């Protein structure tokens, strides 16, 4: 099996899906220009040479426009992949995605389907407030949309294939610091995990979380870059004699409720880690889930480590203060397990 970066895995998924189904097309800015970028982070590099400009379509800078074009094309039989340079610009597509794509199937009484995938690079990389957001929660809130967030190359390929074949609109989040973009696109502070990726066909189903590390004392649930930061914290916790289980949700809507409840039943402690803001984020949804269906398992109140409820600051010192770090996750976990458990009667 070959080891691939996430960029390579995503590219392979698109290449295989485009070869498999001629209705799969890519629409986006700078995705297919000769001697160009292959999208903002090189994901589509080489695909226009292979599949031609009819299928790898360079759009004007018109996000609302090409989101709408993708929706129309999808209703007429295509399977468009919509490329965004930064997830932040998905807000320019908001009406098309939320009012149109997400509702067409329902409003039409099931007459039409909108199989589009919106690929959105997320994550803070000292570029300031408009090139840094991880806007997963906005879309989790919308019935009719699915939201996935792979953190490994294997999942990136498998989930993207599932997304392309899904008959509904899917918001597909990719983390800039996990891509493994090469050359001039190298990001400071990137992790760029490489992982084994089978050549050829396989899919990863939506709605299945994965345990990245087994543990007994607390459950840490995370997505994307935060999975790695949680794993780093877990390693340090082990040195303190605390055994943390780390769950990577992979899929935010549908959400793998069972995986979370099962783990919490085992550990009795829940720490939720998200790079998105806290207010109404997926951490709130998971906390509510456990409050509704797993409260009896908890030996201490749920704890959350998220980015601050502020826009993303630019200065590197501020960005570090803003975002969850392994140190913050470690400290929160320690506090949760050590202090949290001392309040045995926390439920009053």
């Amino acid at each position, binding site marked *: 099996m070959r080891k691939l970066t996430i960029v390579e895995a995503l590219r392979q998924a698109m290449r295989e899906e485009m070869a498999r189904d001629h209705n799969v097309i890519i629409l986006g800015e700078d995705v297919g220009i000769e001697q160009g*970028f292959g999208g903002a982070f090189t994901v589509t590099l080489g695909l226009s040479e292979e599949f031609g400009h009819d299928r790898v379509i360079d759009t004007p800078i018109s996000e609302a426009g090409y989101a709408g074009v993708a929706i129309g094309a999808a209703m007429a039989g295509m399977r468009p992949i919509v490329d965004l340079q930064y997830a932040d610009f998905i807000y320019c597509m908001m009406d098309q995605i939320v009012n149109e794509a997400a509702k067409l199937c329902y409003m039409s009484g099931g007459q039409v389907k909108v199989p589009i995938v919106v690929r959105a690079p997320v994550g803070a990389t000292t570029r300031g407030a408009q*090139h840094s957001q991880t806007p997963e929660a906005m879309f989790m809130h919308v019935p009719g949309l699915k939201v996935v967030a792979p953190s490994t190359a294997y999942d990136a390929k498998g989930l993207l294939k599932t997304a392309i074949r899904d008959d509904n609109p899917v918001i597909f989040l990719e983390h800039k610091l996990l891509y493994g973009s090469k050359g001039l696109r190298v990001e400071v502070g990137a992790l760029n995990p490489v992982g084994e990726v089978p050549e050829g066909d396989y899919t990863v189903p939506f709605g299945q979380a994965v345990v990245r590390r087994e543990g007994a004392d607390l459950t840490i649930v995370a997505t994307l870059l935060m999975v790695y930061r949680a794993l780093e914290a877990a390693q340090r916790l082990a040195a303190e004699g605390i055994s943390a289980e780390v769950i990577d949700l992979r899929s935010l809507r549908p959400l793998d409720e069972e995986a979370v409840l099962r783990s919490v039943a085992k550990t009795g402690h829940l720490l939720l880690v998200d790079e998105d803001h806290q207010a109404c984020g997926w951490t709130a949804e998971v906390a509510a889930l456990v409050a509704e269906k797993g409260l009896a398992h908890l030996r201490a109140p749920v704890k959350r480590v998220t980015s601050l409820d502020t826009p993303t600051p630019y200065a590197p010192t501020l960005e570090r203060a803003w975002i969850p770090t392994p140190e913050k996750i470690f400290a929160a976990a320690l506090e949760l397990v050590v202090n949290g458990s001392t309040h045995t009667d926390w439920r009053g």
Partner: protein
Amino acid sequence: MLTQGAPTHRLPATDLLAMYETMLRIRRFEEMVYYLFLQGDMPGTLHLSTGQEAVAVGVCTSLRATDFVTSTHRAHGHAIAKGVGVNALMAELFGKATGCCQGKGGSMHVGDVRVGAVPSLAVVGAGIPIAAGLALAFKLRKTDQVAVCFFGDGATNEGTFHEGINMAAIWDLPIVFVCENNQYGASTHVSKVMKVANVADRAAAYGIPGVVVDGNDVLAVHEVTVEAVARARGGSGPTLLECKTYRHGGHSRSDPGSYRPEEEVAYWKTRDPIKLYREWLAGQRRVGEAELAAVHVRVEQQIDDAVEYARSSPDPGPELAIRHVYWEGSA
């Protein structure tokens, strides 16, 4: 060759020299930040306006201090031309507390409202209706101010361009739309994303004047802006100016620009706006060589000082991260 015999030509020598100095200040500022970026001293990303300085300077020299400009991800030149100090600008790029936005904005969000530079907006096209909104307020409040909206060729394909300009047109707002057509939106050539030859041709659809000007000719840009600003201030509504220009470097720090033909890049370097203007000034003999040399020394010193200022400035404390989410009153 620069515009000959135009009225601008009759500007006092001090103004002509000041325009040269501002263009040079932008050039040296950006060359310095790029160097610092390569050294690893600069976080984030950079979009340089090297080669486009005549637009920022030609336009902003036609404005009053009380007029407002909006800008984009490629904002350093507009900020400097409108009067944002290079110390505060440099400190902002370093992410320091003394930056023009306290280190919270960064390269793509620079500005200082005290000099009429609205902190720039990096979502392409976002500033166009917002600038129209500034102009609406100026009109309703009868302030006699004018708004100038800078944006690129690529931005003209956003819906906000259509919506913003149409509203400005129907309400005769005091605004000048300045499209810096550097012929590419990132790697995409304008001809791939636009059927008309000129962005200015689109003005007809809104019933406002559209003017094409050589964006590497600072005097020509100044000339047409003076007229458009007078029109705006006089209550006759917006103008769409299209300045044809070129960026010398890549789109951002990570772009080698390999999608551009070498001859094209070479041709535009022969049309370097600073070089052209300096030749014109020399031909005019109203500004002496000694004065020009002194400008170079002064600018060099300012930029070195700005780096020193930024380096020795404190980092913003973490408590600043949670401030200013909501208005805290004027400083």
